């Protein structure tokens, strides 16, 4: 009984941690990279304060000025920045 409870608790904990990691990340270099990409497209942002990982090379970045952009690589290999 105890063992099952412990395993269940562990499973819940692991799932929660994984989900949290997938939702929001905070790598300063990644934020910088996203800010640079947005700037390269000539879009206003200033500084990326946070971002969410949606998938492989797919992010939603939140900027200091309030703008939010989805930054991703499309199937043709082009980096696309879409205002959210």
């Amino acid at each position, binding site marked *: 009984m105890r063992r099952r409870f412990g395993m269940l608790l562990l499973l819940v904990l692991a799932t929660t941690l994984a989900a949290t990691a997938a939702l929001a990340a905070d790598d300063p270099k990644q934020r910088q*990279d996203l800010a640079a990409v947005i700037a*390269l497209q000539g879009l206003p942002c200033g500084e990326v304060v946070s971002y969410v990982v949606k998938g492989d090379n797919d992010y939603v970045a939140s900027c200091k000025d309030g703008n939010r952009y989805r930054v991703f690589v499309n199937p043709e290999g082009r980096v696309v920045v879409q205002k959210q």
Partner: protein
Amino acid sequence: MNPVWRAEAAFVLAIAGCAAAPPVESPPAAIAPATAKQASASAPPSKPASQPADAKAPAKASPAPPKALALAKPQVSPSIAPKAEAAPALDIKSLEEQLKETKAIGVMTKLSLKNQVDDLLQRFRDFYEGRLKTTLAELRQPYELLLMKVIALLQDADAPLASAIHRSREAIWAVLSDRDKFSKLA
């Protein structure tokens, strides 16, 4: 990551322009002769630095140079001399490696730059094939803008690479603005 590195390599080859185009005159990347020509045109001595980037290059070279270089030249073989004087000259392979390894810009930024380089090359292609009604002078602007973006991204975290790219601007433009050289590149 493989596609990314290949993209970077293509980016480097695209902006450098010399890798695919066999150097017209001598190996040390067509840049050396190009810069050498510029040097002879402006100030014989030279450090090819005839470029504005001269400010960076040991300015002492300019005035005194004639004697100094006259002495220095014989000491170095022709193949090396251009390299030495053109310290600014770009070593394509080395640049490729540096761009691949630079931590100054991230993967997404490298990809984005590559996209923009491809777009610019396409504009040149269209121009040479008559599909784009513009002039070379008008194409210079987006070229300069793109290089500035690259340099701006690199200058803080990878100043030597930014400097190397800056010094090769004219050489790269010489390739892009020459139909024959560009066709070999494209």
